[in-house]
């Protein structure tokens, strides 16, 4: 909503600087989005209203002319290329030194200098709208109204500040100049001056009969009409045009301008029908019938439903109520009588129709919001009064008025103690009452503790005492409210287990060299299925199926959005892996190493008609190249980087025993991936991303991924730690290198060494795996380091040797292992 200050000051004489006005309104919840200053750059001494006195041809150029312009103080001859001027025209005239907009250059400021154009001196300039910053029009000179006072500084004639309001839905009363003026009057404690209406001077003896037929007050609480005749179509007076233009409305002619002017002034939309095209002396409001059609003013045939509201006459639909008129009752050049409608319609129905048809206008915007039915009568009287004042028409202001939906004013019992209870500050009661009265609330009764307050009709947003507390805060100023902290409080933990877990997980990943990312939760089914690398359903074993179900349920139909912004984001993701791989691909384009990424975020598993399961999964990926200590030293990432990361997490959550086992799933490279489970609980899956999956994510180097069910991690976490006595006696370390079958599992040997060695084996760790020529085909070499220690004494060399030999024998016997030399 644009509010030109010259218009606002018609009703309230506010003279504070515009910045202060804007701030006070904004503080009051009527947000000023922008302040526009029309003509701020027009120098009062250099830009004037001028008049073309004569026009001479240019001696050297056919396309140029030499108008002489009178601008009060003197007359000057200038050169122009504009085709649209004639003698007598009022035009904007700038003398040298004036700042204009460079219409031929970059649109920046241009200071006017004397110039010789094709041999003729030009000492000034007649200006286009564009050069004055008044719009885009540069086809010709801006022609001012005939009564424009020659010699007046242009800024006084056309300039002024305009504030633009971003209104919240509660303050539809401010969709009008008078509405804003009321607020300003209240805030600055100034009187409000409403236009004098007088009484219409209609002397016509016979006026037509009109019956108004509102079929259902739910559709329209009020329908009132004025009658205009003796029409004289002409441009509106300058004062009206200037106000309309500053408010963003293009002036058309006096009759159209009056309806727009009164709508902007009062907030009441008006619609003009050609009275002689209306049939049967009746006008009314009803729902459209199914299948009914109406050709609207834009020439479109509109198919209507009973959810649309129409205005009808004796012959059928003549307008789409509150949204657009019908072509069959349009006002044209031949119109001689007008029915001017001021009505109040059901806001929800107008809203649905205007949205459904994509027809939103200044009028429908107002009808969609709360609009006081009381305004209709005032708007009609004002319109007819204005029509007579500017000589556009004569008329009957309240021709007919049907008001079946009249409501009682809202009256609120207001305990004054509510003010300190909600605001935390106690104001003197006179200040509270004064604040309400400045906002046009009437105090009907006052018993000391409680007052009875009547709300003005235009404040439909105020229905209860909390609303009145807000009025008091607005009028006195929110800044009066002090700062305190809430007293009392809640006993209990402020950090949830889940948040705590998430912090731990993120910290571990970050410490391990992974960068957290946050990706979008929207995807689409095809994009989600890319993690399968194509149709690899046959490559799934039972363990892989569990991995798919828990971490990659991309075969499930994801939750679909009804109104996606983009086709590739029309669903909620069931896994984050796709997005994380896409992010890996994007970063690998410029980062040649150490691209380890993770996301700990929700995925959305559909649950039929119910809200989906919002499942938290940790997804980590890493590209092939990793730094190793040194400058520009690097190594390649392996399966074991991801396994080590998973083990670090498990250890941090106190999960001591878990099983690692291979699985087959198309997202991962078979033979290079594994799950980690604790008992029946699947905790994690990790491994090399399959080449097909990589390819669909545009990653052209090996990549690894880890998926962790953090909820499962939390459910079996054991944060208890038990102190163990530090060893008092020395240990002996002995390695054993064995040759075993390729398809053996290292974990089995560790178990066997532990059990054969007994209690003196403190720990066993794998230190080397060898595959190659030095062992027979189908074999590999493994080297384990065994730490022997007795807690109560120092072991002798003999004891260790005996135990070590026993272990070797056991490995030979159980696995057919041979010692490697």
């Amino acid at each position, binding site marked *: 909503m644009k509010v030109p200050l010259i218009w606002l000051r018609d009703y309230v004489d506010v003279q504070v600087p515009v910045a202060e006005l804007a701030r006070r309104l904004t503080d009051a919840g*009527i947000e000023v989005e922008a302040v526009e200053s029309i003509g701020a750059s027009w120098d009062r001494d250099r830009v004037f209203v001028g008049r073309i006195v004569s026009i001479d041809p240019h001696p050297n150029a056919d396309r140029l002319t030499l108008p002489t312009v009178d601008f009060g103080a003197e007359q000057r001859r200038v050169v122009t290329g504009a085709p649209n001027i004639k003698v007598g025209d009022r035009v904007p005239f700038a003398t040298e030194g004036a700042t204009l907009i460079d219409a031929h250059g970059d649109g920046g400021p241009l200071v006017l200098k004397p110039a010789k154009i094709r041999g003729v001196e030009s000492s000034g300039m007649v200006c286009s709208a564009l050069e004055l910053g008044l719009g885009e029009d540069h086809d010709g000179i801006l022609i001012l109204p005939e009564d424009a006072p020659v010699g007046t500084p242009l800024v006084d004639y056309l300039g002024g500040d305009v504030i633009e309001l971003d209104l919240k839905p509660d303050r539809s009363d401010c969709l009008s100049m008078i509405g804003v003026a009321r607020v300003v009057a209240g805030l600055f404690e100034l009187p409000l001056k409403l236009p004098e209406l007088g009484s219409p001077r209609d002397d016509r003896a016979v006026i037509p009969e009109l019956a108004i037929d509102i079929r259902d007050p739910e559709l329209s609480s009020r329908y009132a009409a004025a009658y205009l005749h003796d029409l004289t179509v002409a441009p509106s007076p300058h004062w009206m045009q200037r106000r309309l233009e500053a408010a963003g409305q293009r002036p058309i002619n006096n009759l159209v301008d009056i309806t727009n002017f009164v709508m902007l002034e009062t907030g009441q939309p008006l619609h003009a029908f050609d009275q002689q095209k209306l049939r049967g002396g009746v006008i009314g409001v009803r729902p459209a019938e199914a299948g009914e059609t109406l050709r609207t003013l834009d020439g479109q045939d509109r198919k209507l439903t009973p959810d649309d509201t129409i205005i009808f006459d004796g012959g059928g639909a003549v307008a789409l109520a509150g949204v657009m008129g019908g072509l069959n009752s349009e006002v044209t050049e031949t119109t001689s009588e007008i029915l001017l409608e001021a009505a109040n319609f059901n*806001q*929800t129905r107008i809203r649905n129709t205007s949205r459904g048809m994509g027809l939103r206008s200044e009028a429908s915007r107002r009808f969609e919001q709360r609009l006081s039915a009381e305004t209709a009568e005032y708007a009609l009287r004002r319109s007819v009064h204005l029509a007579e004042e500017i000589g556009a028409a004569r008329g009957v202001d309240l021709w007919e008025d049907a008001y079946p939906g009249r409501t009682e004013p809202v009256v609120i019992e207001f305990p004054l103690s509510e003010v300190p209870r909600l605001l935390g500050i106690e104001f003197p009661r006179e200040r509270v009452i004064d604040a309400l009265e400045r906002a046009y609330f009437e105090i009907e009764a006052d018993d000391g503790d409680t007052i009875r307050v009547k709300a003005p009709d235009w404040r439909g947003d105020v229905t209860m005492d909390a609303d009145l507390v807000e009025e008091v805060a607005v009028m006195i100023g929110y800044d009066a409210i002090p700062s305190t902290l809430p007293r*009392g409080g809640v006993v209990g933990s402020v950090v949830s287990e889940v948040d705590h877990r998430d912090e731990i997980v993120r910290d571990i990943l970050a410490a391990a060299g992974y960068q957290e990312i946050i990706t979008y939760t929207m995807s689409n089914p095809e994009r989600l299925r890319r993690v399968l690398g194509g149709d690899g359903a046959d490559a799934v074993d039972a363990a892989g199926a569990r991995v798919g179900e828990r971490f990659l349920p991309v075969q499930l139909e994801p939750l679909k959005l009804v*109104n996606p912004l983009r086709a590739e984001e029309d669903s909620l993701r069931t896994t984050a892996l796709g997005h994380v791989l896409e992010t890996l691909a994007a970063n690998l384009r410029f980062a040649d190493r150490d691209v380890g990424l993770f996301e700990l975020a929700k995925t959305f598993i559909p649950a039929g008609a119910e809200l989906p399961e919002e499942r938290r999964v940790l997804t980590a990926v890493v590209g092939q190249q990793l730094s190793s200590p040194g400058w520009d030293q690097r190594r390649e990432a392996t399966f074991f980087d991801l396994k080590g990361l998973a083990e670090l997490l498990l250890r941090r959550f106190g999960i001591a025993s878990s099983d690692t086992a291979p699985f087959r799933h198309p997202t991962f490279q078979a033979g290079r991936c594994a799950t980690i489970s604790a008992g029946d609980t699947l905790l994690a899956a990790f491994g090399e991303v399959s080449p097909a999956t990589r390819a669909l994510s545009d990653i052209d180097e090996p990549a690894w991924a880890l998926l962790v069910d953090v909820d499962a991690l939390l459910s079996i976490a054991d944060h208890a730690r038990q102190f163990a006595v530090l060893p008092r006696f020395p240990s002996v370390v002995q390695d054993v290198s064995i040759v075993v079958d390729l398809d053996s599992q290292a974990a089995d040997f560790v178990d066997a060494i532990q059990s054969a060695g007994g209690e003196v084996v403190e720990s066993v760790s794998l230190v080397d795996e060898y595959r190659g020529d030095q062992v027979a085909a189908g074999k590999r070499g493994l080297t384990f380091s065994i730490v022997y220690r007795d807690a109560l004494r120092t072991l002798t060399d003999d004891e260790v040797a005996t135990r070590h030999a026993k272990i070797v024998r056991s490995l030979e016997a159980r696995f057919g292992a041979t010692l490697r030399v």
Partner: protein
Amino acid sequence: MQDQIEQLVARALEELAGTPAADLDDWRRRYTGRSGELTGILRGIGKLSAGERPLAGQLANAARQRLESAFEDRKTVVEAESSADVEAIDVTLPGYRPVVGGLHPVTQTLRDIRRVFANIGFRAVDSPEVEWDEYNFEKLNIPRDHPARDMWDTFFVDNPDRPGEMLLRTHTSPAQARVMEQTDPPIRIITPGRCYRYEDVDASHEATFFQVEGLAVDTNITMADLRGTLEYFARALFGEDRRIRIRGSYFPFTEPSCEAEMSCHVCGGDGCRVCGRTGWIEMLGAGMVHPDVLEGVGYDHRKYSGFAFGMGVERIAMLRYGIDDIRHFYRNDLRFLRQFN
């Protein structure tokens, strides 16, 4: 004699400190050797009276031990220096940087927000991102067809069984109703989480963003408490001299409603580019929980009152780090993310 010994020891030690390896033996000869100075003094003990002799003897022996011990220390140091015949390191060569990752700036900001509110007793709770219209709107005093619905452009989720009811929450406010339905006052919570708006993305708007909702309900909660809480928050995150001003606003689920602004942390309030030359930065929307919302969850609105606020996390992060475009956050470019590690 005592003075004589002390002076000798002091002189010898001073000389020893600068003695190079080659001259160490010479030093020893001169002071503690058979014809050294200390030995000379010891010889003079014989001339003392019998009463003075034991003390002088003790002093002389102690001095010899000190000098011998200092000699050994010096010898160790000098030998270590000479044996390590090292080439000097160019200390300006870069260090080997351990590879460490980091947290997303939104996560870092969320952690800080959580920590600040935890300090004044606000518990962080989670709430669903996919919501019912009932919680996202209706229980927040925004019935269907209410013009205020235009304030939240909504993504709807297809649900044939309950058409038009499932949506992506447009704000974290549904958590208000969810928490109040399950808990009796007093309540002090924040709910951080992702929200969604059906709108085009530009430098200052994202269709997907994080919000933190705050809610305090008790028998004595006032707007002054709201202001104080926000002031505490602004000071913790943006510096001790931050001030808060509040102005009128409108949300269907609060009454009175307000917007809170913080004095600019860049210019301190004088006006700069960051604050649009106003000295104030818009921080969040807030208000006193609407009586209809309280009654809707079964609270007596005459007995209880509460405040609620909702802030955009990216906006807070942008202000803290001076980020000029919200779209950076979810492009996840490492060159961006690593700036905050």
